[in-house]
């Protein structure tokens, strides 16, 4: 810390590195949020697809029985 305060260039480098890390943090939040939302929507779609297929299967079985 003593070394940093006495060396302006080093202090600048540390400050730049911290700023960059902070910005990357927010960039990663943005990208993660984007993909998580789309992934959740895709999972909802997949589960809905399975439910629909199950329902079609059971209705066809009922129709076969009735015939």
């Amino acid at each position: 810390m003593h070394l940093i305060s006495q060396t302006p260039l080093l202090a600048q480098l540390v400050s730049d590195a911290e700023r960059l890390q902070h910005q990357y943090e927010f960039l990663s939040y943005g990208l993660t949020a984007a993909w998580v939302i789309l992934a959740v929507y895709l999972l909802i779609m997949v589960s809905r697809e399975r439910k629909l297929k199950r329902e079609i299967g059971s209705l066809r079985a009922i129709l076969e029985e009735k015939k």
Partner: protein
Amino acid sequence: MREKILYVLGIAALLILAWNVNAIARLPEETQQGVTFKIIFFHVPMWAAAVTAACTALLASVGFLITKNFRFDALAVAVTEVGLAFTTVGLVTGSIWGREIWGIWWTWDARLTSALVCWLLYAGYLMLRNAIEEPTQRATFAAVFSIFAFLDVPIVVFSIKWWRTQHPQPVFWNGGSFPPDWTTHFLWNMVAMLLLGTVMVAVRLRQEEAQREIDSLRRMAHAL
């Protein structure tokens, strides 16, 4: 065949995105906003996909009201649902960008407010559909509501030109530009998002067809 085309399109979209994320990470920092600026490479294509979905929903709704063909109704609900997912991502990524650049998560300026109203309107469209049982009545009411909801879309798009907003002015409309390699990656992301959206809409359309098959099987089961 249709399944294979969907898989090919989906894989193409994911490959473009994977390649592009890697390429965008290597781009230099923007002078004023630094690395956070790179959110724009995802935020804007998501909104472009959402606006495309809203325009398609409008055309499909008008198509249903004119022809009474339920394929138009199925297309309208499919694109609206997928468009709502993209709108959600657009709002969330924009909010995260705003927190870093403006220091606030949200502000009630014309662009952000109209975008939120747009999200609420299309969410309302899906709720309206769930509330009506009879298929023809549901499709007709939903089509009229979808046309009404679309009135907000030009306000969202042009609000940054019509009013002074905290949201940045459009880069390209005001004669601005990206460096050429940035534009290339930006456009590839647009293509990837539109491909992804197309695949999601096609899957959702297939589900609507399955739902119609279920309805007709139920009617047959009751008739027997």
